[in-house]
């Protein structure tokens, strides 16, 4: 049986489905009885969503204009 700290250490990889089969079984065995670590898993999902939700930024029009102008100025083939 693994400890809470071992389960926490592998949590993100577990959520990625990136742990070995034997490790996954050990983590799930732990989760079956540890309510606190189940909370960790739920929060892990939330943190991933949190990162995804903060992915898009509005680009200032001025910046876009300048970058488009860089594109326009790229040297044409001769």
């Amino acid at each position, binding site marked *: 049986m693994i400890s809470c700290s071992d389960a926490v250490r592998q949590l993100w990889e577990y959520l990625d489905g990136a742990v070995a089969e034997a490790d996954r079984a050990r983590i799930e065995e732990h989760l079956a009885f540890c309510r606190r670590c189940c909370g960790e898993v739920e*929060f892990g999902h*939330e943190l991933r969503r949190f990162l995804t939700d903060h992915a898009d930024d509005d680009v200032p029009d001025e910046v876009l204009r300048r970058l488009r102008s860089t594109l326009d100025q790229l040297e044409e083939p001769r």
Partner: protein
Amino acid sequence: MSMGVEDADRFRSLATAELPRLYSVARRLVGAEAEDAVQDCLLKAFRAFPTLENPGAGPAWLLAVLVNCCRDRGRRNSRRMEDSTEDEDLDRFSLYRKIALEDPFPYSDSLHLDFLAQFSREDVRAVLLSLPLLHRAPLVLVHMEGFSTKEVATMLDAPLGTVLARLHRGRKLFERRLWEYAEEHGLLRRGAVG
């Protein structure tokens, strides 16, 4: 390989469509130097465009060029690219437990979600920028841009195992920095009042 007029037009069309994404990723990788990094990327990619064999891979290819430009800037600028010192406690750090233990919002029914809700877009960007670029890049590319770890390994020209290790450390650093940032910027006090 030389660039024909058609190639130049195709490149402009690809790059124009991708500009918002390129700038958004660059802001997370190099902060205030984002615009310069995108310009570096456009110049470099324009020259290399004739070597791109699969036009369908254009957006990912352009992003890979951008990531390289950001890495070059990171290397030039500071030690932020370097790994931080060994930190055994980091591996066992749990933001979930830290929040539960410190209980910053005693009247909250959803303590952990309320903690995350205190962060604005600017705050999240600042937290990301405080991480070493080495760890920030895989975190941004995998969790914010949706690339697989294999794709990121190709993009960063690093072995998959190295990317996985950096991603693991990046996520742990991100969790810990979220807490530290919340303390440093009064987000916990604000949440307790609100």
